[in-house]
C-alpha cells in the first residue's frame, strides 16, 4: 500500500489539508505548543483565535516550517499537509514553501515592480516541478491580480514599485504573488492588523473569493473578523487547542468555559 492509500484510509472524507499529530514545540526551554492535534479541512477558511502567546501564530509558522529559522526551536510530532508529513527528513523546504504560502501581519511586498512581485515566486518555481500557473507572464499577472480584486486598480501601473501602494493594496499583492505557483494552503498571520476598517473589509471579501480554491488558515486577534470571515474556528490557550468547531457554533454555543469567557471578552 502506498502512502496515499494509507492516508486515504486514515482520512476518509472530509479531506484535511493540514493535519497535525501530537505537535510539541519549544523555543529554547519554553514550550509553546502542547500535543496539538488539529485537522484543518480542505477548501475552507479556518480562523485561529486566542490571547497573545497562546501558540496560534507558532502553529501557523510550523505549517510552512519558518519557525526553524530561529535556530533554537525544537519540534516533536508531525504536521501533514495534503497527507504528506512536512517534517519528514526527505522533504525539500523549497517545495514546502511553494505549496504553503504565507501572508504576514505587515505587508511585505518586495521593492520591485508590481509585475515582478507577482512573477517572483513563479520564476523561482516554474521549472522546478510541481504545478504552477500556465500562460504568458502577462496572463499570469493579470489572472493573479484579478483573483485578488486588484487588477482594475493597478492594470495601468504594473511597472510601479510595489512598496508605493497603499497598505491594503500591498497586502492584496502579497496574497496575489502566492497564487501563480498554485499553493495548496494559504497561511495568514493577522493579515488585517495593519489595515484600516475599509482595508480589512476588502481583504475579508477577498478571502471569500479565494475560498474553495485554497485552504486558508488565518490567525486573528479580531473576534468579529473570525466570526465574519471563517467557517471553522480554533480556540487556543496556553499552547493547547481548547476548542475546534464550526465558527457559528463556537460563537453561539461554545462548549468550553474558557472559550466562552474569551469570546465574551473577559480576558484577552
Amino acid at each position, binding site marked *: 500500500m502506498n502512502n496515499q492509500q494509507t492516508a486515504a484510509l486514515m482520512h476518509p472524507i472530509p479531506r484535511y489539508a493540514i493535519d497535525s499529530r501530537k505537535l510539541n514545540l519549544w523555543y529554547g526551554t519554553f514550550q509553546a505548543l502542547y500535543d496539538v492535534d488539529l485537522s484543518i479541512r480542505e477548501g475552507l477558511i479556518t480562523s485561529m483565535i486566542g490571547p497573545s502567546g497562546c501558540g496560534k501564530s507558532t502553529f501557523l509558522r510550523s505549517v*510552512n516550517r*519558518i519557525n526553524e*529559522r530561529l535556530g533554537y526551536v525544537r519540534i516533536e510530532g508531525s504536521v501533514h499537509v495534503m497527507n504528506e508529513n512536512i517534517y519528514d527528513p526527505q522533504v525539500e*523546504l*523549497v*517545495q*514546502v*514553501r*511553494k505549496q504553503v*504560502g*504565507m501572508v*504576514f501581519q*505587515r505587508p*511585505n*511586498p*518586495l*521593492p*520591485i*515592480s508590481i509585475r515582478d512581485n507577482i512573477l*517572483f*515566486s513563479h520564476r*523561482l*518555481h516554474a521549472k522546478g516541478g510541481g504545478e504552477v500557473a500556465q500562460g504568458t507572464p502577462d496572463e499570469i499577472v493579470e489572472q493573479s491580480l484579478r483573483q485578488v480584486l486588484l487588477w482594475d486598480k493597478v492594470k495601468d501601473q504594473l511597472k510601479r*514599485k510595489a512598496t508605493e501602494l497603499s497598505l491594503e493594496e500591498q497586502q492584496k499583492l*502579497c496574497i496575489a*504573488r*502566492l497564487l501563480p*505557483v498554485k499553493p495548496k494552503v494559504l497561511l495568514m498571520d493577522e493579515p488585517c492588523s495593519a489595515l484600516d476598517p475599509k482595508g480589512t473589509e476588502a481583504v475579508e471579501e477577498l478571502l471569500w473569493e479565494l475560498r474553495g480554491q485554497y485552504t486558508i488558515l488565518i490567525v486573528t486577534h479580531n473576534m468579529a473578523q473570525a466570526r465574519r470571515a471563517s467557517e471553522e474556528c480554533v480556540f487556543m490557550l496556553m499552547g493547547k487547542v481548547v476548542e475546534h468547531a464550526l465558527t457559528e457554533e463556537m460563537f453561539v454555543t461554545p462548549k468550553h468555559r474558557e472559550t466562552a469567557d474569551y469570546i465574551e471578552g473577559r480576558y484577552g
Partner: protein
Amino acid sequence: MATANPTMFQASDLNHHNERVQKRYRLLFGLMTLLLITPVLLILGTLVVKGGGAISWEFLLTAPTDGMRTGGLFPALLGTIWLVTVALLLSVPIGIFAAIYLSEYAGDNWFTRTINLAIINLAGVPSIVHALFGLGAFVLFFKFGTSILAASLTLAVMTMPVVIVATRESLQAVPQAFREACWNMGATRWQTIRRVVLPNSITGILTGVILEVSRTAGETAPIMFTGAVFFTPFLPQSVFDQTMALSLHLFVTATQVPGIADEVPFGVALVLIGLVLTMNSVSIAFRMWLRGKKKW
C-alpha cells in the same frame, strides 16, 4: 473676543532663556561646520592659485625632462591610473564577495566575530606597515619584483577592509523583511541576494568603492617600496613593469629636486586631486543613473 487669560500663552523668562541657549548651540554647530570646510577650500584654492599656471596639455601629456625640472607628468599620471585600476580589479570582487558571505551567509559566532575584528584592525594598520608587508610578501616572497602588480596587490590589501565594511553596511541596510519575504516563497539565499539584496544595496557598495578609489590614488607609502619609482624613461607595458606615480612624483618634485619651479609640485598635486575628483564624479554619476533607473 477678549481672551479670559491673555498672559497664558506669553513666553516666560525660562522660555526666553532656553531659546537663547538653543541659539548659542546652533551657532556653535554652524561655526564648526564652517571650520570643517575651510581646509578643503584653502587646499583647493592654494593648489589652483599656485599650481594652476603649470597645467597645460604639454604638462599632462609629456614626460619630465631636465631632471624633472621641466616637461610634464604623463608617466606618473598613467602609472597612477594603472595602479588604481589593477588594485580595484583585485580588491573590489574579493571585498564584495567576502562581505556578502559575512552579511548573508555566516552566522553570528566567535569565528565571524573574529573575522570582523580582524577586518577592523586591518583597516587601522598604518600604510607604511602595509608597504613593508607588500615588500616582504609580493616583491620578495612571491618574486613579483618592484612592479605594478606588487604595488597594486599592496594597495588592494590595504583598501579591502574599506570595501568590505562599506559593502556589509549597505547589505545590512536592506530590511530583513525583504529577505524573509523571499525565503518564504522558497527562494534560496543566492536567489534572494541576486534578485533583492544586491539591487537594493548596489548604490551603497559603489560609495564604498568610490571612497577606495580616492584613497588608493593618493597613497604613497605602500607603493614606494613595491612598484613606484622616482623616475623611469619607459611607460609601463604590463603589470610586471615598474612605474612612476602621481603621489610619489609629488613627493619627489616637492622635496628631492633642487632648483625646480614652485608651480611644478603644486601642479602635480592639482592633477592628483583632479584625477580623484574626476573618478569620484564619474562614480557618483553612475550611481545616480543606477538609482534613477531602478527606482529605489
